[in-house]
């Protein structure tokens, strides 16, 4: 049998299985996280290698090892390896599927991968999984429901995520900085856009998703707007920076002061170093001064402020502190006293039409700007989508069903830490799941900073290398069998490797992430790399490349 690795010799459902490695299989070829198959009598089991051990049938060997460099000991070592001394592979059975070779009737439920609830008998064959096995478990990249995210560490076969399931819940992409989170995010977004699984709004803090960006080697890589043309619109908060990089944004986003609410201020508590009473004062102002409360508070002189405090029972010191902090917001370049038409409406309309939006922050990449803008926009969108959903519930008309909306945010722990998660729209979205057709794609390097309740609702986790114990713990919040996966996660390379687990994959899988290169552009565009290049040249001819 080709690809045979060994023989199952011991194990339990709870503790995992032990297989004895065949003498012919080099132990160093079996790595943590490897995907293997065990063929039982009724079912095939798909397992991950969680540990590799050296063992011996006789402890005398270990007490008196043939360690001399001479020929005899070398011969002895050769003879003993695989017989008296051998390798044990620890396996965690993840899934079971009907063994089609078995001569029996299966129920339909047995034909799809299910969590392994039993184990194969003694001496079952343990073998490498084949391409067909991968396709049976992870599906095939068909450009619609399944999207290839990478390959297993030691094989060249596609590993796919189920996009329909992916967009059903909020998802997370985690990893230390420099491990390729942005590339993974771009990859996933490409898949979602290509398959039209959801409409995307991307808060692009570092301006790397919309138009081209440089990878770590300094090569230019394409942005979403270059790959998908008119289906992705780039908006910017900093027109000058965008133009400077050769981006042709569809519009510039300005936020009017009246579009800012108390909830937005509450979220900025950290960034503005607000006192605890500030939110109450802000609420009082909004209550008494109406939608224009920020502008009106900012315009008050000392006397007016005192009068207002006295009249409405506010704390003068707190109001005054709030006012000076609000000046920081007022000074943000994209914040305007008033706007004739809300530019946000333009973005929202675009999303409603099913067009994807990348919002670049340009030089406004400080957290104050990022948190404010994302929260203002997301709050509006969330309200709108809730309304849409309620209408759909009433009419039950398929035409009214809102498009699933996926919002990508970076530095997510700023929005979803245990304090903020309770008060912000992001927390609500993360907890509400797909009920209102809005989900998050959370990109973060410190998952431990995210509220545990939110983390437990994260459907699919794609994790690059993490070192901090707390971050690793956070990844496995609400994941059964996490302890087996910890060792796997700990062995990820710092680049281009990730552990995918959760709702969109039938079982956790360690992957080499797919390369984001001309081949990928061609695959995603459905046309060759040359056509993509020609298209971007044509774009430059029409619009110039200022």
């Amino acid at each position, binding site marked *: 049998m080709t690809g045979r690795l060994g023989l199952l010799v011991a194990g339990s459902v709870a503790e995992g299985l032990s297989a004895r490695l065949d*003498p012919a299989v080099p132990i160093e070829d079996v790595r943590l996280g490897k995907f293997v198959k065990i063929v039982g009598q009724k079912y095939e089991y798909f397992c991950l290698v969680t540990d590799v051990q050296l063992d011996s*049938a*006789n402890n*005398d*060997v270990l007490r*008196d090892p*043939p360690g001399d460099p*001479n*020929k*005899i000991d*070398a*011969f*002895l070592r*050769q*003879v*003993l390896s*695989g*017989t*008296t001394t051998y390798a044990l592979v620890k396996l965690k059975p993840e899934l079971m599927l009907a063994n089609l070779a078995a001569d029996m009737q299966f129920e339909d439920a047995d034909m799809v991968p299910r969590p392994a609830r039993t184990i194969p008998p003694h001496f079952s064959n343990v073998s490498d999984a084949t391409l067909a096995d991968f396709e049976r478990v992870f599906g095939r990249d068909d450009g619609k429901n399944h999207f290839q995210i990478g390959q297993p560490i030691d094989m060249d076969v596609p590993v796919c995520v189920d996009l329909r399931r992916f967009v059903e819940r909020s998802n997370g992409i985690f990893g230390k900085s420099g491990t390729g989170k942005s590339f993974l995010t771009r990859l996933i977004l490409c898949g979602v856009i290509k398959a039209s699984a959801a409409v995307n709004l991307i808060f692009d803090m570092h301006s790397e998703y919309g138009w081209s960006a440089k990878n770590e080697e300094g090569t230019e890589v394409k942005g979403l707007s270059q790959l998908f043309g008119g289906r992705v619109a780039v908006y910017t908060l900093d027109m000058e920076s965008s133009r400077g990089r050769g981006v042709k944004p569809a519009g510039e986003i300005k936020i009017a002061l009246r579009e800012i609410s108390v909830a937005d201020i509450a979220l900025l508590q950290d960034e503005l170093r607000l006192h605890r009473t500030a939110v109450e004062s802000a609420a009082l102002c909004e209550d008494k001064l109406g939608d224009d409360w920020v502008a009106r508070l900012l315009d008050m002189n000392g006397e007016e402020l005192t009068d207002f405090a006295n009249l409405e029972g506010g704390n003068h010191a707190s109001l005054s502190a709030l006012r000076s902090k609000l000046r920081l917001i007022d000074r943000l370049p994209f914040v305007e006293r008033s706007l004739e038409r809300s530019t946000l409406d333009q973005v929202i309309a675009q999303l409603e039409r099913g067009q994807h939006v990348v919002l670049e922050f340009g030089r406004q990449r400080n957290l104050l700007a990022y948190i404010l803008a994302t929260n203002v926009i997301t709050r509006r969108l969330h309200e709108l989508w809730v309304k849409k959903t309620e209408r759909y519930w009433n009419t039950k008309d398929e035409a009214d069903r809102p498009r699933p909306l996926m919002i990508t945010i970076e530095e997510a722990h700023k929005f979803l830490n245990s304090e903020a998660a309770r008060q912000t729209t992001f927390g609500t979205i993360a907890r509400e799941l797909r009920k209102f057709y809005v989900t998050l794609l959370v990109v973060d390097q410190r998952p431990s900073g995210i509220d545990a309740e939110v983390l437990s609702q994260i459907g699919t986790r794609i994790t690059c290398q993490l070192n901090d114990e707390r971050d690793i713990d956070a990844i496995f919040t609400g994941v059964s069998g996490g302890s087996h996966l910890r060792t796997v996660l700990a062995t990820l390379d710092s680049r281009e490797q990730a552990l995918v687990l959760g709702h969109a994959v039938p079982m956790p899988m360690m992957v080499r992430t797919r390369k984001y290169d001309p081949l990928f552009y061609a695959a995603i565009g459905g046309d060759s790399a040359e056509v993509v290049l020609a298209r971007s040249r044509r774009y430059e001819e029409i619009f110039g490349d200022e």
Partner: protein
Amino acid sequence: MSHNGIAHVEPGLTGEVVEASTSEFLAQALELDAAPPFGAFVEVAADDALTVYGVVAHVQTAGIDPGSRAIMRGHGDVRDERIYQENPDLPLVLRTTFRALVVGFTEGQEIHQFLPPRPARLHYSVFTCPPLTVRRFTREGLEFFQALLTASEVPNDELLAANLRYIAAETGEGQAFLERAGRELAQLLRADYARLTAILRRCLAPGETV
């Protein structure tokens, strides 16, 4: 006529069965001191397609008459080979016998590595197995090691080591065979590491290349 009285005609012919049982047979060598080597494969064919295979486990030269023991014949300068020249009757009163442990048999085409249904027939010819037969027999399996390891009244470990060296040389498989045999032996002697290494060390001369 040879010294032991049998015409030496067929190649490989090495002796005649003089005692036979299920698990071993004793043969008298055609010529004095001309027994097959310790650890060699020998075969005895019966008329009915049954061929019994044995491994030479013990070789002995002594007086033909069990009651009479050899006495010293040397004197003065007459020593060693000259004793035989001076006493031409010696080959007639001495004989070389060898004991072979039965390790398997063929019946028809199939090789079996366990004891045959009938022992070898008395007075039938014993042949040294040609290399082809040794190769066929050992390719079939190495279960016969067990018989060599557990036989009584033979130096088992020495016997097995001698047998391994013999097969390695005879089949020309050398190191590859020794490795295969070593693995088989490691399974059999998994509980006795010291014995395993003792046998394996005897298979390989210290300077030998691996």
